[in-house]
């Protein structure tokens, strides 16, 4: 019974993936991609990787979906003027993708049995950190440097988006796309949902230490609530040059970096935590990162500045 469900799920994902590629209209392709992300999240749940499932649903499907929807809306006026790629390009892309898929399949099928794993060692040292969720342990203890760099990359991505702004509107206000239209139903939702959504985002960050959850999933929820407020016109988009906004953007990575540097003095290595304080420091860093991630993802979605700060 479970096998039939899994087979059905896998088949559905493959069909939907093929349809996402085949469909001509960008908007439809984006909607199919969002649905695909939610189905892939279900697969991760079936593989007992709830942390990955939450991230896939929140980032892979939700935030990426919002980014792609914005891009599709911006492309719509010029889309029909662009000729679809020719058969030769399609073949080249198809062959390259097939090679990658075949490579991944080979890696998965040729793994020795049992597969090499560091899980027992990871679990054995986990109690020292005071954390209960091994995924958070990997992210903030064993591979903390990767996590730090990942957050910096996120800010760099935003710098890339902002650099698309014209010179005379630099530091100005991003124009939401599609243009917001006052709608009482959307306003109702934007006033009803954020208290619950923000609470859930904070809970997601807090519970990440011991259960599935964490900074990225919590931050994505904050982003969703913020975008809802912006789309409904309940909140105005902030000027990208505002100092408080820029401080919020770097607060998480900066605090994490400071904690990492104090590791030199107190524990003898970069990003090492002094004994007994690991969990407290990780939770503090995660809280700041959640806030920064929420703001960064939201600003990525609203795009570069398009008008000057009006007095």
């Amino acid at each position, binding site marked *: 019974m479970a096998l039939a469900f899994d087979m059905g799920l896998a088949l559905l994902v493959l069909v939907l993936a093929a349809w996402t590629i085949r469909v001509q209209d960008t908007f439809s392709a984006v909607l199919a991609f969002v649905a695909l992300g939610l189905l892939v999240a279900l697969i991760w749940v079936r593989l007992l990787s709830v942390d990955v499932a939450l991230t896939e649903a929140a980032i892979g499907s939700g935030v990426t979906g919002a980014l792609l929807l914005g891009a599709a809306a911006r492309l719509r006026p010029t889309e029909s003027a662009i000729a679809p790629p020719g058969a030769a390009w399609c073949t080249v892309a198809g062959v390259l993708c097939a090679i990658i898929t075949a490579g991944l399949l080979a890696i998965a099928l040729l793994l020795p049995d049992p597969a090499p794993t560091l899980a027992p060692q990871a679990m054995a040292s986990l109690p020292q950190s005071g954390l209960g969720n091994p995924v958070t342990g990997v992210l903030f203890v064993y591979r903390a440097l990767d996590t730090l760099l990942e957050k910096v990359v996120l800010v760099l991505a935003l710098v890339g988006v902002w650099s698309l702004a014209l010179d005379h509107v630099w530091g100005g206000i991003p124009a939401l796309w599609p243009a917001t239209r006052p709608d009482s139903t959307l306003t*109702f939702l934007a006033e009803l949902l954020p208290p619950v959504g923000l609470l859930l985002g904070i809970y997601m960050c807090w519970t990440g230490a011991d259960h599935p959850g964490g900074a990225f999933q919590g931050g994505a929820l904050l982003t969703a609530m913020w975008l809802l407020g912006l789309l409904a016109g309940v909140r105005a988009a902030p000027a990208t040059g505002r100092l408080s906004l820029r401080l919020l953007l770097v607060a998480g990575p900066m605090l994490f970096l400071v904690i990492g540097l104090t590791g030199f003095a107190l524990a003898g290595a970069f990003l090492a935590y002094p004994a007994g304080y690991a969990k407290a420091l990780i939770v503090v860093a995660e809280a700041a990162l959640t806030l920064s991630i929420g703001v960064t993802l939201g600003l990525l979605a609203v795009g570069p500045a398009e008008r000057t700060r009006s007095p």
Partner: protein
Amino acid sequence: MTRALDLLTIAGVSAGCFFFVAGTVGLLRFPDALTRMHALTKADNLGLGLIVLGLLPQAAGLGHALKLVAIWLFAQISSAVASQLIAGAVLRNRSAIWP
């Protein structure tokens, strides 16, 4: 007692699935956006409600049960708002075509 609860679950989830199938058939067969949405929202809300009702006896405790009910409630809210927005867009496009 557990058998009675299991029967309740089977009945609830089956009835919920029936409404999902009915809603999907409506989505595929109805002629325009408004009627399709009617089929989808009505059947989905009822379908999800019945599935949640059926799953309640299997919940591990009061907390789990409340989470299940919350899922249904938020699905209701989002589906109601989404259908209002889609219907609004349909009406605006209509008046653009037939002023």
